[in-house]
């Protein structure tokens, strides 16, 4: 799939996105609300299809951001779905592990260190924190870092 095709196909899900940002010549950001993230990722992974790379979690100013990175290997584009979770008290997002098993571990890691709940995740156990780490303390949250 070349760049033009990719740009055209991305317009099919334009109504679920806040914006389509072409920041540099090989990065595309798709900011969206957390509720639409599942559909957008499913579209990218199953309909286009793009290769799933990794998930990043960020404790942003007044919300959490979960970034799902997908790669279009033919052109070298990285398409990033940037999902905003506005609820800081009980942050939750729909898990993409049911259709991308490769995302299982990285979602567990994001849950460990940022405390974001991934709904319908098949196996949400502790992954990287030590066994004696207290429950409910998330080390990369801003209030813990201070």
């Amino acid at each position, binding site marked *: 799939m070349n760049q033009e095709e990719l740009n055209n196909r991305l317009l099919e899900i334009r109504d679920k996105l806040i914006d389509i940002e072409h920041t540099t010549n090989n990065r595309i950001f798709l900011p969206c609300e957390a509720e639409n993230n599942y559909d957008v990722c499913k579209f990218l992974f199953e309909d286009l299809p793009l290769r799933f790379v990794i998930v990043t979690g960020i404790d942003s100013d007044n919300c959490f951001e979960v970034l799902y990175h997908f790669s279009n290997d033919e052109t070298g584009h990285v398409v990033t779905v940037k999902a905003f979770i506005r609820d800081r008290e009980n942050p939750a997002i729909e898990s993409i592990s049911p259709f991308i098993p490769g995302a299982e571990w990285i979602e567990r890691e994001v849950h460990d260190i940022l405390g974001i709940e991934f709904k319908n995740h098949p196996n949400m156990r502790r992954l990287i*924190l*030590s*066994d*004696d*780490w207290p429950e409910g303390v998330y*080390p*990369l949250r801003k209030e*813990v870092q201070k």
Partner: protein
Amino acid sequence: MWSLKKSVWVFHVNTGACNNCDIEIVNCLTPRYDIERFGIKLVGSPRHADALLVTGVVTRQAAPRLIDVYRQTPKPCVVFPIGACACDTGIFRGGYHVVGPVDKIIREEDPNAIIAFVPGCPPKPEAMISGVVKALSAI
């Protein structure tokens, strides 16, 4: 103490290292450096060891394991923290999972432990050999 001056058998403990120091330790055993000619031998159990080569910052998960390994080592033994992380936690200082450095954890268990530092990121095999020689000639 005289037992430490002949053939020193070492046990290698990784307490959260990035593997670079571990590779350099293995490098000491290759034909190029061949530390077995000095009688230094890597063994598979701390119960057979005279010295511990500890790499890594000592993470929260690894600290009790390091103490277990130290308790199992016959005394007297020498602890060698290998690399910048093991000596002083290096670039990981203040990390949420870091409880090290190595000497702090060992001293909590045994205040009179013999500890000899080999800094570097990673230390060269020459540096490790020199560290072992200096430490053993000092005791």
